[in-house]
């Protein structure tokens, strides 16, 4: 007698023991082949059970059947197009809620499903009592307990599979989505049903549900059909994301109705993590909560650091005194006092702010909140043409743009990655903070913290708008989808946060001792060399940092470029040297205004007329947006592998900075604010 032949597909979430079950069913006879056109592997194997020859197909692990990823498309297409006789869904008995989500989708697809309730021994060992009989009654799906790694329950499973394949009638299941969504489903069913090519191949209700779910793969299929226009006109009347979320919620509601009836203790206890996530990932409150948390971090960074800055200031003041008292050679005294101690001290004074900022970021990261921030921002990121994964490198940019740009390597899509790299320098790094602190402290008093927070927000807004612009013009295309697991919240430990703070903060210290030191010495040298035609000695007091020095010559060459922004030649020089490292902007100003490390003296000179609140604000915005430091430019070149994109980033940023500072100065002057 010829054996009966059936095909079964093994489906399930990742890590539920699917491959183990596949091996337990097929023994050593499986072989591996490639799906046409995709890189994902499928495994097929054979098994003869009684008088039935069974072909077993192992599908990629998926959480749902909405085509978010290639794995889901492969699994879904196989079930829909190849129509296996039975789909065996391997359900992890220790995590019923999440696994049953896929069950609801397989049921909607009209598949004949048999559930292999795997790892039930583990579930029972922790006290869960699962009533498989009740589960069968509620779901109207056969349920068989298995322990795949011990090959337990395999024969019972195959018995059930063969029986299901032989069944004549098949009852299709529906999840009820509520009146509003159901009306749309019916409307779409009527339209889609008119296309016989589509309705002959796929269940019409399922197609309608997937269209409302925003399934890209199905939307593409509809585009090419005769009913595409009608479908699109129905879809244009709904808020797609709202529908998608509401439908997922309805599926979970259906699961949560069944779950307490079939399982004692399976209902997951509500944890503090669940409670926090409900609020911090809320559609309306998520982003405002994120902004509030960032503001708190900046308030601590700015205000709490003030006495610590005073201590550093006192130390450098004492050091400058020692240098002045003990070095009699005027040139050497000026180099050490005005150049090195003054320049480096002007930068070092902000070390407490930098360390506190990194401590705050570390606390937010270590607590698990930053992963939620990425999740919350994903929707916004997608809208602007970026992938949610881009948010982490952007956040890292608050510390330093160099490692942040290197972190874009985790973004698989090349175009997503390129856009993330190009906009990353707009995220204000720690090196720019001293410039804001000095200027905001001098001109905006108690409001300084809020002004600095506003500058950071401006950086984020510019990055977002630039990404949108770049995505719509030079790097066209849609961003790839993003799925991330949210780690449980943890109370950050002081030790771990201190280590993370130090890892990031020490970079600032190293820079102060190397590139910043060289930079400020170079600035001092230029300010000490007399300009051509000036009759004065090297490093003499009458030329140091004045227009009669070489730096004055350089400043006056640059001045016409920045004078429309309200900046003088000293600011022009400071900005030029800021290309070496952003901290040098302040170090240079200390040297040029002859105030050395004395931040208060520099603030006094600036507020006494050298600058207005308007030009100070313009300078902060210019510093935020103009060409990043040389190390950042280097890493952009390395990561993009292109001078074209590197130059684009430099020119685009500087142009934007100039326009923004110009508008601030001109509009402010016109309305008489901060003049």
């Amino acid at each position, binding site marked *: 007698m010829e054996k009966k032949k059936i095909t079964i597909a093994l489906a399930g979430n990742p890590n539920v023991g699917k491959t183990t079950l596949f091996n337990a069913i097929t023994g050593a006879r499986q072989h591996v082949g490639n799906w046409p056109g995709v890189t994902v592997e499928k495994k097929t194997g054979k098994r003869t059970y009684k008088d039935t020859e069974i072909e077993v197909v192992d599908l990629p692990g998926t959480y749902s059947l909405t085509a978010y990823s290639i794995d889901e498309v492969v699994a879904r297409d196989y079930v829909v197009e190849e129509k296996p006789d039975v789909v065996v869904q391997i359900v992890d008995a220790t995590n019923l809620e999440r696994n049953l989500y896929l069950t609801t989708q397989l049921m909607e697809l009209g598949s004949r499903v048999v559930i292999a309730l795997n790892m039930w021994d583990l579930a029972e060992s922790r006290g869960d009592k699962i009533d498989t009989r009740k589960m069968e009654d509620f779901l109207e799906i056969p349920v068989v307990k298995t322990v795949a790694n011990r090959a337990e329950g395999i024969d019972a499973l195959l018995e059930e599979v063969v029986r299901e394949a032989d069944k004549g009638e098949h009852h299709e299941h529906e999840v009820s989505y509520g009146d509003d969504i159901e009306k749309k489903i019916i409307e779409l069913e009527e339209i889609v049903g008119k296309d016989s090519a589509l309705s002959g191949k796929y269940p019409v209700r399922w197609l309608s549900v997937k269209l409302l779910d925003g399934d890209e793969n199905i939307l593409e299929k509809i585009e090419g059909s005769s009913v595409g226009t009608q479908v699109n006109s129905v879809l244009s009347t709904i808020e797609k994301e709202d529908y998608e979320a509401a439908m997922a919620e309805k599926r979970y509601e259906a699961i949560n109705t069944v779950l307490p009836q079939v399982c004692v203790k399976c209902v997951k206890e509500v944890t503090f993590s669940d*409670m*926090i996530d409900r609020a911090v990932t809320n559609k309306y409150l998520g982003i*405002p909560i994120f902004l*509030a*948390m960032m503001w708190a971090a900046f308030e601590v960074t700015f*205000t709490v650091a003030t*006495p610590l800055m005073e*201590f550093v200031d006192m130390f450098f003041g004492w050091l400058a005194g020692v240098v002045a008292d003990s070095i009699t050679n005027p040139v050497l005294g000026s180099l050490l006092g005005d150049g090195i101690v003054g320049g480096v001290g002007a930068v070092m004074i902000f070390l407490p702010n930098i360390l506190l900022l990194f401590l705050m970021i570390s606390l937010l990261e270590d607590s698990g909140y930053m992963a939620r921030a990425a999740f919350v921002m994903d929707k916004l990121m997608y809208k602007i043409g970026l992938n949610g994964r881009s948010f982490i490198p952007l956040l890292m940019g608050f510390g330093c743009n160099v490692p942040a740009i290197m972190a874009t390597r985790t973004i698989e899509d090349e175009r997503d990655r390129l856009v993330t790299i190009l906009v990353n320098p707009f995220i204000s790094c720690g090196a720019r903070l001293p410039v804001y602190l000095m200027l905001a402290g001098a001109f905006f008093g108690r409001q300084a913290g809020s002004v600095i927070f506003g500058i950071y927000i401006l950086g984020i807004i510019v990055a977002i708008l630039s990404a949108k612009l770049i995505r719509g013009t030079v790097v066209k295309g849609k961003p790839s989808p993003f799925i991330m697991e949210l780690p449980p919240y943890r109370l950050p430990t002081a030790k771990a946060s201190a280590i993370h703070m130090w890892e990031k903060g020490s970079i600032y210290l190293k820079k102060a001792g190397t590139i910043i030191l060289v930079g400020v010495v170079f600035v001092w040298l230029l300010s000490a060399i007399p300009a051509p035609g000036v009759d004065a000695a090297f490093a003499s007091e009458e030329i140091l940092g004045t227009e009669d020095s070489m730096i004055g010559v350089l400043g006056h060459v640059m001045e016409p470029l920045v004078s429309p922004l309200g900046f003088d030649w000293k600011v022009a020089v400071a900005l030029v040297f800021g290309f070496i490292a952003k901290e040098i902007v302040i170090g240079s100003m200390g040297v040029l205004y002859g105030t050395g490390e004395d931040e208060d003296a520099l603030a006094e000179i600036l507020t006494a007329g050298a600058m207005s609140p308007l030009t100070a604000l313009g300078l902060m915005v210019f510093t935020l947006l103009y060409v990043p430091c040389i190390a950042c430019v280097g890493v952009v070149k390395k990561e993009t592998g292109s001078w074209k994109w590197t130059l684009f980033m430099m020119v685009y940023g500087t142009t934007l900075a100039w326009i923004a500072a110009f508008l601030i100065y001109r509009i402010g002057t016109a309305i008489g604010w901060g003049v």
Partner: protein
Amino acid sequence: MANTNKMIFAMVAGILYVVFGILKMLEGFGIETGLAELLLIPGDFFGGFCFVVIGAVFLYAVKELTAGVHMGVSYIYVGILMSLVFMAVYLLVMGSDILMFYVVKSEDYEGWRIIDSMRPGIYLGILSLIGYFFWKDRFTTEMTKA
């Protein structure tokens, strides 16, 4: 009954934070409300915005609990946590002011009194502190039962 108490708490805390937040924002814009000195409210636009956010979180809890959603209690929990974070921030700021006055002896702090560093974030936070210690462990257990 337990949720009624929580709802009243969320309503009061929500309204207080939103009102104080708006006052801070108005003062930040330079609009004299006449309450700044009495309630120790500094003009601070972004700080005020944060208060409005905390208030909105509490009021969202009221919205969900009124609709019979038990998990709405989550918003009270998060509102409490956020207000405690902000209380800690303002206490740190106060600590920094104390250092500036007693240790650094900064000229800017001449005549400074501790009341000058008292902010609504501190005294409103006390309300949340009471709520936290009263409901701390009951938040999750009551919701799991529900």
